[in-house]
């Protein structure tokens, strides 16, 4: 019963709230007055043509870029312009589009460093090691624990990228094209992983993805941006029928 009351309470206040967020590089308006919310437990997809500003938006949310204007609220604290490591401590972690493992460290160490520094709470080393092992198991990397990260294949590196962010115990995970570059079979294997993060670990997810079939299947909600502006916010099924989205993202009908 306590749990119900708690989840009800959280449902009323969004996990992430972005208000009129803008960012320009010189004269270029990369992100223009974007507003949206992510509620606890949701998987939200973020799509848009190349250069639409998806990765810039991620960089703003995770502290790698400072906003030129607007407001980012995460768990009721304003995080616009906050340092990335602080934002991580609050419970938001991101993966990178181009995977960036620490090449000279083992898979285990890669995850361990995130487990140690991703959260402020001090735990004894044995507890940290236990956590790391559990994460490696749940991401299917357990047998690779002792290997150098530089020796992993691309799908394994993508898993490591996710494993590392999981070790920081995020409440909101920003996934930047984790499915890109995987073959259909590998995508099939990766989707259950993403679902289980949401179902079992109760992590909310905001994900950039080009693989439309995958994103339609996973996401509760879809955000579409084009030229730095939000042009759609709603159900995935509605998105494919929205003329503006079709025009901007899927292209003219004749082309298809």
């Amino acid at each position: 019963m306590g749990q119900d009351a708690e989840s009800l309470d959280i449902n009323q206040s969004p996990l992430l709230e972005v208000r009129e967020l803008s960012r320009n590089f010189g004269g270029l308006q990369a992100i223009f007055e974007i507003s949206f919310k992510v509620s606890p437990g949701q998987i939200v997809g973020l799509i848009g043509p190349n250069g639409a500003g998806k990765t810039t938006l991620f960089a703003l949310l995770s502290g790698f870029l400072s906003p030129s204007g607007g407001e980012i609220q995460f768990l009721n604290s304003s995080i616009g312009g906050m340092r990335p490591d602080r934002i991580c401590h609050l419970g938001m972690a991101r993966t990178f589009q181009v995977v960036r493992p620490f090449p000279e460290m083992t898979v285990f160490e890669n995850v361990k460093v995130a487990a140690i520094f991703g959260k402020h709470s001090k735990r004894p080393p044995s507890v940290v090691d236990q956590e790391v092992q559990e994460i490696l198991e749940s991401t299917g990397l357990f047998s690779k624990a002792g290997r150098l990260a530089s020796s992993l294949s691309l799908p394994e590196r993508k898993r490591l990228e996710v494993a590392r962010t999981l070790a920081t115990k995020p409440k909101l995970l920003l996934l930047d094209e984790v499915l890109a570059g995987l073959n259909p079979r590998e995508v099939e294997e990766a989707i259950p992983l993403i679902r289980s993060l949401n179902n079992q670990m109760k992590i909310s997810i905001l994900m950039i993805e080009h693989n439309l079939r995958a994103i339609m299947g996973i996401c509760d909600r879809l955000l579409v941006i084009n030229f730095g502006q939000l042009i759609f916010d709603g159900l995935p099924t509605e998105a494919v029928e929205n003329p503006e989205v079709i025009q901007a993202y899927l292209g003219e009908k004749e082309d298809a």
Partner: protein
Amino acid sequence: MKLGNFFQITEKTAAFLTFGFVLILPVVLSFNPYYLSIFIIALILGAVSLSWNLLAGVCGQVSFGHAAFFGIGAYGSSLLVLKAGWNPFGAMIIAAFFGVMGAIIIGTPAFRLRGPYFALSILGFAEVVKLLTLNLTWLTDGSQGLFNIPALPAIRIGSMTLDFFVSRTTNYYLAAFLMLAIYLVIYFLRHSNTGLAMSAVHGDEETAAGIGVPVFRTKLLTLMVSAFCTALMGAFYAHYVHFLSPDSAFDGSWSVMPIVASLFGGMGTLIGPSIGALLITGLDEFIFKQFFETGHKLFFGILLAVVIVWTPKGLFGKSIRKK
């Protein structure tokens, strides 16, 4: 054909072999004072190289100006002894902390910049400190330098007296002990949580920040430890040679040779740089000097180029495994 294909040893074994070699080297040289003096400098260089490599090889922050910390340690300790009458051992420790202060002064602004700016600004920093030493004549006697810097006081252990004024052997073993102490500090630091953070910062600064690693603090802390150890060796150097000038204490070779030694020995290892320092000293002394009395240093340049092209991870970079 690379050394890594012929033999593979662990970091620990390499360290044992290195310090074992250092221990018996004076016997091999039959305590010849000239050769001892050469290898005392090699050990000082070895210890500075270990410290430089903690910053560059482990944390990924290349410094072109470690001479700054070496000179600060040398002058700091000498002045505390000459002008304030301190015991040289105490002065050495405090002088090492002067090095830490220098690290904070240059690291605080420089580590906020990304890219090669740290390497460049520390180069400038070394020059500034040298010019200060040259011009603050009331304190440092300027270009005249400092004379008669006292040797470390003799230590009595039971019936044995360790004399640092006359005996080269005693100085040699103290230098070896300092190098060992610095190695142990670096070894344990590397295997701590902070060491993991250093590796992560080396691997990818942005990603490290993204998973909660305090990047700036990690880099500054690494520089502070590196500067402490370097300044300590500078202080030892001052009490060993008894004479300092801005040109000798802040000599650019204290910035350059640790880089050369680390590239030789392998930046990816912890012990490698000290092996590199001993190796280049040995090569220079026993081979190059025999054939070319003048210009023998020229061979470093050629040899370094060959090593970098042939085996970029250093001669032992592939032979010494991390675990």
